[in-house]
């Protein structure tokens, strides 16, 4: 078994009552390059800051080599961080910035000089010792920041989106350099990014996070090929994600078509999410093909053509080296092992509310109930006060309302996934999660006001 050098156990972190991390557990192994990947606001930077000691979680424990270190201040941890905006000390020159940590350790002057020189050579900044950090370019500043962290010889290096401020070309070069640096120095790197490509390129393992929880941990190939859920599939690479029904082992139905797959162990007729990567779809002759569609759009992407194909009212994305004509009918074939079946993130197909009638008005024919402390009134429906109700809201009965006019305010958008025909949006309010269907693309990790269209709801009395 691999040796875990840092482990987080059941970490809960709140910032003024907002849950940032929800029960995170993570083991980091010796000498690995591990990346925390997720959209902004998912808690990846907070996780890094907890390891560095800048934040103390309210619950859970952090272990370094099996020893609990929660509450230990950052300067007592042999861990160094490369900050997002470098955080170089503007009043010091390059040499003094890099030597900062060594001087604090009170090493002999000669040794400091040697080490700094050596480290500056490693990051290709030979001869820059006396330069002011303000006179350096972004890429050079980045190198100084890396040198400053590495020269202290920490076992663990934390990098918080260190390449975020660089332009694309430089970023690609630095990715490779950083990876080589990690292999050369044999240190454990914990890297935070929102760039999935960066994560796949550099990491030994990727930790995909969303809304304060870990969605999946795995090797880049595994996370790409075997995403744990629709969020991961959508966030990493491009994917066609569709609703399907698992008829039995190795048999799935999507868009009314039965397809062979290799997944087993789901319940009979269980609703599932199905992922098919665009490059795994083969264009075949339409006659005899199970899936047939019309080419709607073709874009040349350099290595391949990106085609948008309409099939059963559903938009499919196909990557192919051969271009098809727009308007042409094509057949699509997917090998069984390229169809990936995932558990649904939201297990119920609809939103169910069980509640009691709080107040009702016979004259106006309305019924009011309490939802997370707010009064919600159902028009054109009358039930006696105190009656127990079961309200089932299908995904299309939910809508995002303008500020203040919705029935539930401050609802967090956890994920937005394009399901071929429409977006499937998962939202989180104070007490529960909601599933919603919408044609409009919404911004993940934002707060919105949620409204309900009760005319689409099924309401019945329960005992």
């Amino acid at each position: 078994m691999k040796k875990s050098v840092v482990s987080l156990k059941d970490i809960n972190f709140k910032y003024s009552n907002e849950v940032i991390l929800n029960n995170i557990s993570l083991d980091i192994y010796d000498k690995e390059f591990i990346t925390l990947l997720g959209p902004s606001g998912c808690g990846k930077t907070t996780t890094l800051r907890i390891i560095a000691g800048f934040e103390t979680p309210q619950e859970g424990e952090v272990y370094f080599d099996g020893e609990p270190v929660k509450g230990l201040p950052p300067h007592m941890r042999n861990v160094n961080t490369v900050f997002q905006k470098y955080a170089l000390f503007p009043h010091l020159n390059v040499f003094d910035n890099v030597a900062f940590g060594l001087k604090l350790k009170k090493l002999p002057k000669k040794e400091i000089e040697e080490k700094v020189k050596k480290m500056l050579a490693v990051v290709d900044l030979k001869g820059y010792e006396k330069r002011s950090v303000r006179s350096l370019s972004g890429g050079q500043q980045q190198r100084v920041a890396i040198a400053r962290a590495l020269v202290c010889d920490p076992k663990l290096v934390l990098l918080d989106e260190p390449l975020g401020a660089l332009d694309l070309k430089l970023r690609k070069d630095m990715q490779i350099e950083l990876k080589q640096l990690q292999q050369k120095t044999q240190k454990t790197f914990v890297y935070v990014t929102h760039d999935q490509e960066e994560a796949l390129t550099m990491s030994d393992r990727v930790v995909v996070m969303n809304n304060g929880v870990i969605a999946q941990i795995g090797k880049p190939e595994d996370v790409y090929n075997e995403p744990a859920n629709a969020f991961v599939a959508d966030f990493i690479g491009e994917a066609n994600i569709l609703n399907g029904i698992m008829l039995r082992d190795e048999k799935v139905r999507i868009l009314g078509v039965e397809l062979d797959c290799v997944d087993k162990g789901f319940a009979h007729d269980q609703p599932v999410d199905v992922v098919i990567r665009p490059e795994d779809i083969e264009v075949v002759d339409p006659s005899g093909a199970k899936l047939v569609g019309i080419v709607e759009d073709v874009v040349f992407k350099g290595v391949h053509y990106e085609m948008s194909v309409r099939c059963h009212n559903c938009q499919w994305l196909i990557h192919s080296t051969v271009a098809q004509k727009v308007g042409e009918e094509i057949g699509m074939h997917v090998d069984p092992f390229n169809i990936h079946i995932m558990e649904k993130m939201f297990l119920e197909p609809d939103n169910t509310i069980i509640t009691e009638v709080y107040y009702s008005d016979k004259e106006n024919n309305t019924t009011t109930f309490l939802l997370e402390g707010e009064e919600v009134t159902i028009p054109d429906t009358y039930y006696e006060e105190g009656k127990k109700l079961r309200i089932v809201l299908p995904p299309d009965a939910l809508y995002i309302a303008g500020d203040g006019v919705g029935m539930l305010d401050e609802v967090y958008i956890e994920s937005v996934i394009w399901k071929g025909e429409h977006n499937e949006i998962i939202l989180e309010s104070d007490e529960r999660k909601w599933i919603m269907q919408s044609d409009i693309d919404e911004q993940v990790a934002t707060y919105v006001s949620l409204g309900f269209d009760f005319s689409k709801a099924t309401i019945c009395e329960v005992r």
Partner: protein
Amino acid sequence: MKTKKSAYLSPKNRFSLETVKRRRDSQAGIKSKRPAIPYLGWMLVFTIIPLLMVLYYAFTDDTGAFTLRNFVNIADYSHIFLYSLYVALISTLICLVLAYPMSFSISRCSERKQSIIIMFLMVPMWMNFLLRVYAWVLILQSYGPLDTLLQLFGVDVTLIGNTGAIVVGMVYEFLPFMILPIHAVMSKIDNSLIEAAQDLGCNSFFVFRKVVFPLSIPGIISGVTMVFVPTASTFLVAQYLGGDQLMIGDVIERVFQFNHNSGSAIALVLMIVILGFLVFMNRFGDKEAVGR
């Protein structure tokens, strides 16, 4: 068994679990509220308690018993109160009228020139204020330079010892306090804004009314505040230039020499009037800001 210490901890700072527990939740450094503690104590002793003492003295007599008589006594000084506000108002208005075109002209100069002009405006400000008042005593005194000059033209007036002299002294003292804040906001008005307005067909007056003036209101408000408050409450200027005419600051000083209770009452009323004025100006500023 002895616990193995982790290499992931700083080798210099090997620690025991106890130190960890002790350090838990302990904030330090610049993320801490603690550095404010000495000053919070300071404010309590040297700001809040003294004001509470003013309050206490204002409502008690010399035996320490509660009384409202101090406030009744203030009635004797109400005309001085009103006179002080009147002088402050006139002085503020004159400062505003003199400062506004000056500030505007400065703000349209090149940056280098602006900083030089501002420097020359500040030199007199840095002179001791009593010496500046004293200069006017010398200038305005009978047989002084101005008096002599006017005599040559056959004009015979007393220049010192009246409201006019006080106002001149006040304007002289506080004019820079009006110019600087108005200039500060005007220098931030982008020239391209004015050009844009001209481009859209505004004549100079319209440019001024529609662009420059609205944008300069915050500066006017802080200038008016910075001139009115010290003018209304200052003492000595009237003693130097006003002859027998006193202002409220002088009254507070004199009354305090023999009666702390009455003095405190006047000081309290002055403070409330000034605070009311500040709140009013603040509200006014907010309303203007919203109105735009």
